[in-house]
């Protein structure tokens, strides 16, 4: 057993008790990356020198008996859409290749102040547009559980890195499921906080009314620890909420007796994998045994979520991505005449196909004569979708659903048909439209040893209750926590 295989809280404990040094921990992390990342391809860039330097600094603090911040010595991987000062940030796109941000995102500053060590930037679908990480300009990431399958997306690199023990914690972003779906495909814990809970300053914008930074961790305790660090108001993001950040670690350990759980019937429809359905049924029985009360609930506008999401997200994206024009940063084509041709050639060569497709859709939906029929219509339906949740939460404390209708699918399986790919986010998208928090955690492995995710949805700013439900599930579930074996097997072949 090497140190990188532990959870963040286990490593924090060992460092504090002086049983291991931070330097050893970070070395084990990079050893694992050297060993497996040729196959997994979770990372786009590493921060090795700086990370090892920081590890030594923490070890000096330990030696001097100084007080240690909450995440001291924890190796964290960052999705490459969050700006890191001095460390290349590409958003998985050719158009930002070589971009070195002059400032840190607020979450990065918070992690650093908490003693976390940024070990590298992770692969993703270009500008977070995708569900498989296959839309990265730098090639796909593979799922550690089966290298022929996708890790999910768009935070696929982050989820794969944590699953393969290449990091203890990773940050991702979730606009329509991009933290929860890859967490589910890789058997990890993924939390999308309430819109406004975590500052988006320094997060490169995709769809501003839906984007939220979230965490991917090995267990619920690590999730609670990280959320405590990254949450809270930031004067640099006027949409971040001025609310106290609760002690998630403490509250998640309380019992769930009497908790009222709603199970939305619209989520159990054709297209739902039978093994996923069985796993959720089994999970609900466990919640019942723990004293929760379970009832079926209806969210009648669920079937309109996907269309609503793709109209709103692409419209916002077409506006946000107008800034990539080859002037201030990133790629500029070599071959151009006038300004207009420079813009067009730079953007056409710099963006990949899915990004162009979404810019085109969004531009069309916002264009004169179509605005009311598409964008405004979608915003109105968004109101109805949110009202469905408001109504459900008057009666229930949390809602429980599958995270994705299927386990991880094969690489290339859905690339040719964008609409089929979009459908893999059908259970996560409504949550972003409603702005509410949700967590995905592993609840079973299927017959092919692929992880299956359970999604717990909460009221606005009530991350505490979903963490509590998740923690109780994790502590009492009989499903053993496995590690993906394929890594060591495949890697031995090469060694």
């Amino acid at each position, binding site marked *: 057993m090497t140190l990188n295989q532990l959870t963040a809280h286990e490593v924090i404990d060992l460092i504090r008790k002086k049983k291991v040094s931070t330097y050893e921990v970070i070395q084990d992390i990079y050893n694992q990356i050297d060993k497996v990342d040729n196959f997994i391809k979770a990372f786009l860039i590493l921060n090795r020198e700086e990370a090892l330097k920081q590890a030594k600094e923490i070890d000096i603090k330990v030696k001097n008996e100084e007080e240690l911040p909450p995440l001291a010595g924890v190796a964290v991987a960052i999705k490459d859409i969050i700006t890191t000062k001095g460390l290349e940030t590409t958003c998985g796109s050719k158009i930002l290749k070589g971009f070195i941000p002059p400032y840190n995102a607020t979450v990065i500053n918070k992690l650093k102040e908490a003693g976390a060590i940024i070990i590298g930037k992770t692969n993703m679908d270009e500008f977070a547009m995708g569900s498989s990480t296959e839309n990265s300009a730098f090639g796909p990431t593979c799922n550690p559980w089966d290298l022929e399958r996708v890790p999910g997306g768009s935070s696929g690199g982050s989820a794969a890195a944590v699953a393969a023990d290449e990091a203890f914690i990773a940050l991702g972003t979730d606009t329509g499921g991009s933290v929860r779906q890859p967490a589910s495909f890789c058997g990890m814990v993924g939390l999308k906080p309430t819109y406004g809970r975590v500052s988006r300053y320094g997060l490169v914008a995709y769809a501003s009314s839906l984007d939220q930074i979230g965490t991917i961790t090995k267990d619920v305790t690590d999730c609670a620890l990280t959320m405590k660090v990254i949450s809270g108001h930031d004067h640099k993001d006027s949409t971040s909420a001025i609310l106290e950040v609760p002690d998630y670690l403490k509250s998640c350990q309380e019992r769930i007796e009497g908790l009222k759980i709603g199970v939305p019937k619209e989520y159990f429809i054709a297209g739902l994998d039978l093994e996923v359905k069985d796993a959720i049924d089994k999970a609900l029985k466990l919640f019942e045994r723990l004293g929760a009360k379970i009832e079926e609930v209806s969210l009648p506008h669920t079937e309109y979520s996907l269309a609503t999401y793709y109209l709103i997200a692409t419209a916002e994206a077409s506006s946000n991505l107008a800034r990539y024009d080859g002037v201030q940063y990133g790629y500029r084509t070599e071959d151009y005449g006038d300004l207009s041709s420079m813009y*067009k050639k730079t953007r056409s060569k710099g963006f990949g196909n899915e990004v162009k497709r979404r810019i085109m859709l969004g531009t069309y939906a916002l264009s004169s004569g179509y605005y009311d029929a598409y964008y405004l219509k979608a915003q109105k339906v968004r109101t109805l979708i949110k009202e469905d949740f408001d109504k459900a939460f008057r009666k229930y404390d949390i809602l429980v659903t599958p995270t994705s209708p299927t386990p991880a699918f094969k690489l290339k399986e859905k690339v040719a048909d964008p609409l089929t790919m979009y459908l893999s986010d059908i259970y996560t998208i409504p949550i972003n439209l409603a702005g509410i928090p949700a967590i995905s955690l592993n609840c079973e492995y299927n017959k092919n040893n692929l992880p299956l995710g359970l999604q717990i949805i909460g009221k606005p700013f009530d991350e505490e209750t979903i963490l509590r439900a998740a923690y109780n599930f994790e502590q009492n579930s009989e499903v053993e926590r496995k590690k993906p074996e394929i890594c060591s097997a495949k890697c031995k072949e090469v060694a």
Partner: protein
Amino acid sequence: MTEKIITKKEVEYVAQLANLKFNEEEKEEFTSQLNSILDYFKKLNEINTENTPPTAYIISMPNLLNEDKVKPSLTQEEVLFNAKHVKKGYFQVPKII
């Protein structure tokens, strides 16, 4: 697909608006893909939203304004660092007049 919602000519017009350029093959592909996606979007017409207000921001929050105070920001050097073409402290673009 039943009917064409967006024609190739419209795809060319939208590309112009979005500052994108496509070859003939790409135009055909985008026209067909956008048509099937827009066809799926027609689903929203099943719902009557005449009396429903639109939602732009999902969590209602007070409008926050920062104090109008000068604070240190990035230096000119930092701001220009990532530009490929810079001249005399400015971003440089092709001649426009």
